[in-house]
């Protein structure tokens, strides 16, 4: 049965998706690195950056420190914890009067005092309730719970002061109580203690900030957006001189098919016709598709490679012609590095050639479509991996060259561009591989190593850093669900350019989290109820679905792979075999990015119900002549 074969193909895609995802956990390497950095010698660190999302529906959400997901059309308020920033700056660059332990104690006391003061009104209310209570067990419990948020902060301060008495708090507290006319209430005693601690800690923090500013400590905050068009910086008001990006809103209601989908729809129509007429023989057609795909990869690669080589040659020739002996000497080193890249490129090119020959010679010939597609998937995965390795080699060489000296900045810049080109190429290849390859890639990747803060990013003195800034995603240009954002905050000392250090990075993924409507063409296999005038159990017809979806703020996996929807499908059926299409409308459930859609509906022309299974995978490309 045709439908059985197609169902097998569908399952094959699904199976590959899951196993491939297992290989690549999202950002596992960098995540471990950043997590490690989050634990200082004084224990877990507070984040410097806090991001709050304000979505188009008026919702407000705190974005988690790791693995944050925001709606693609939201505004993001980025807040900077000035205290934590100063603490990290002081610990990196030193403070005149305080050692590391004292700095840690100072900020612990400051934060605890602030929190304690915030909870003080609740404590006062708890004491009032207690005064009017019967003092039974329930009242005692309520009192303890009412007081605990304050007393626990008091104990934090006390613990810090045990190691480091710098506030002069004891003497001031003793003086306050002694001079109090009458008997201060318990709430007044805590209030005075916490206010005293907060005031003194703030004074010391201000002194510390002045001291850091006098040392020339600066702060930079930058942000980038990674889209299909590459990774580019975005404007953060108050922190850079970049212009605001183009206005672009990802539509939330899309009921029309775009040009590409229209073509896909026409493809499904043709495929449906062929299936009805000839049946399916996927393996033969799949080989043809694979060969075509590999040819496309090679053509892309050669095109990029030629441009990269031309850039590098021009740079080296210009440097060789230099009158400066240092430049000429350094050129020799550059050439050696380039030779290393060339070897890697040759290796890669040879690999592509072997793969292409393999498909051309029908070395993979098999009558089993499942086995064949399994081989194809493995080869495609290897192409992606090889391309990534090549990009990494070029990036590594670029790092070596940067150290050679300022004279070769342009050469290093060219190679950096080459590394970027190759990274982009790797991504392009993956995109070119279509739906299957998307499963191999754990979302869009940001190559953090090649990101640098441009001259447009201001170096703000530590005492002039704004408390917050806002990034309106609508002003970040064209983007799509799955694209990413990176925020990076760094500190440094003005007189020492090498002292700059990244304090924290926060990477977010953008998806259509809010409710939205999408449309998708699909190839539908409809099974009519009762006796229909057709040769097979299933009628293969083109159709399209209009689906309501909502994304997840907690799971990239869901957004990338599950992406469930519910809605309606519209199909051009012909159950009565009169070659006149009849409208079928079906309630539809979609999962796996619309690859699998099922539902039940009604053929209005033939007055008959039906159920269907279908999908938006490129099944049509696997169906061809016998």
């Amino acid at each position: 049965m045709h439908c059985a074969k197609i169902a097998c193909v569908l399952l094959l895609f699904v199976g590959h998706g899951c196993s491939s995802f297992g290989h690549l956990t999202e950002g596992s390497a960098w995540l471990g690195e950043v997590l490690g950095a989050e634990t200082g010698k004084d224990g877990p660190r507070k984040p410097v950056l806090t991001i709050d999302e304000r979505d188009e529906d008026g919702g407000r959400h705190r974005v988690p420190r790791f693995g944050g997901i925001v709606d693609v059309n939201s505004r993001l308020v980025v807040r900077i914890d000035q205290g934590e920033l100063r603490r990290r700056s002081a610990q990196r660059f030193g403070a005149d009067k305080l050692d590391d332990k004292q700095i840690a104690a100072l900020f612990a006391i400051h934060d605890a005092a602030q929190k304690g003061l915030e909870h003080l009104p609740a404590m006062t209310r708890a004491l009032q309730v207690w005064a009017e209570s019967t003092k039974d067990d329930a009242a005692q419990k309520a009192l303890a719970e009412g007081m605990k948020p304050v007393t626990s902060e008091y104990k934090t301060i006390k613990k810090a002061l045990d190691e480091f008495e710098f506030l002069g708090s004891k003497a001031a507290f003793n003086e306050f109580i002694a001079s109090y006319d009458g008997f201060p209430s318990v709430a007044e005693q805590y209030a005075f203690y916490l206010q005293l601690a907060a005031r003194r800690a703030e004074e010391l923090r201000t002194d510390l900030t002045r001291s850091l500013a006098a040392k020339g400590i600066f702060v930079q905050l930058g942000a980038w957006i990674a889209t299909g068009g590459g990774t580019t910086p975005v404007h953060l008001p108050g922190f850079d001189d970049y212009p605001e990006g183009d206005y672009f809103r990802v539509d939330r209601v899309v009921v029309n098919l775009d040009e590409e989908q229209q073509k896909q729809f026409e493809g499904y129509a043709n495929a449906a016709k062929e299936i009805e007429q000839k049946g399916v023989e996927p393996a033969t057609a799949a080989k043809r598709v694979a060969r075509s795909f590999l040819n496309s990869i090679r053509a892309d690669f050669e095109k990029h490679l030629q441009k990269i080589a031309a850039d590098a040659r021009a740079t080296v020739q210009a440097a060789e012609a230099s009158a400066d002996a240092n430049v000429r000497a350094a050129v020799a080193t550059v050439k050696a590095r380039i030779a290393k890249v060339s070897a890697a490129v040759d290796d890669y090119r040879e690999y592509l050639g072997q793969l292409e020959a393999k498909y051309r010679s029908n070395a993979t010939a098999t009558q089993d479509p499942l086995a064949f597609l399994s081989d194809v998937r493995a080869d495609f995965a290897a192409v992606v991996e090889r391309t990534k390795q090549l990009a990494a080699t070029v990036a590594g060489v670029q790092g070596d060259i940067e150290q050679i000296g300022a004279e070769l900045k342009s050469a290093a810049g060219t190679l950096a561009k080459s590394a970027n080109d190759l990274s982009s190429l790797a991504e392009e290849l993956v995109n070119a591989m279509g739906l299957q390859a998307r499963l191999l890639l754990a979302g869009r990747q940001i190559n953090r190593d090649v990101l640098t803060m441009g001259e447009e990013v201001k170096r703000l003195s530590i005492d002039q850093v704004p408390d917050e800034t806002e990034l309106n995603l609508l002003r970040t240009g064209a983007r799509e669900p799955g694209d990413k954002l990176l925020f990076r905050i760094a500190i440094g000392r003005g007189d020492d350019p090498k002292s700059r250090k990244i304090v924290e990075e926060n990477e977010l993924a953008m998806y259509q989290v809010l409710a939205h409507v999408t449309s998708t063409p699909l190839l539908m296999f409809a099974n009519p109820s009762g006796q229909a005038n057709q040769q097979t159990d299933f009628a293969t017809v083109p159709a399209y679905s209009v689906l309501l979806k909502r994304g997840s703020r907690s799971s990239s996996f869901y957004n990338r792979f599950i992406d469930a929807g519910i809605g309606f499908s519209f199909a051009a059926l012909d159950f009565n075999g009169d070659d006149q299409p009849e409208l079928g409308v079906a309630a539809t459930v979609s999962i796996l990015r619309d690859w699998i859609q099922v539902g039940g509906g009604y053929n209005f022309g033939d007055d008959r119900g039906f159920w269907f299974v279908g999908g938006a995978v490129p099944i049509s490309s696997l169906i061809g002549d016998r």
Partner: protein
Amino acid sequence: MWKTLILPTDEKKLARKLFVEFVRDEPYALLVVFGKGEETEALVRRASKLAGKKNDPRYVIWARKRDHIAEDIAALKGGDQVGDTALGIAISMADKVCDVIKETDDTDFSRLFDAFASTE
């Protein structure tokens, strides 16, 4: 003295009864001060000033003869940690000894406030 129960020195039985009943029945965080003399009296006055307003859940007990109630203190949770030379102890509403003021400690308001806070 404000919000302070002074135990008798001449009737051990009565002193024990007052102490035990107060600890058991009265819903207060307690600061119990031991001993006699001017310094101790000054300590008690400081503690009573920290006992707060009338309805605040703090109280002070002045046990001028520690040995009268030594057995009862030892019977409390954490009572075995008090020792013979302590100047005072803080007892929570759950009748647990939360802090011991040692003879080497300052007995200023700050220290006594800390003793009360340990019970809260």
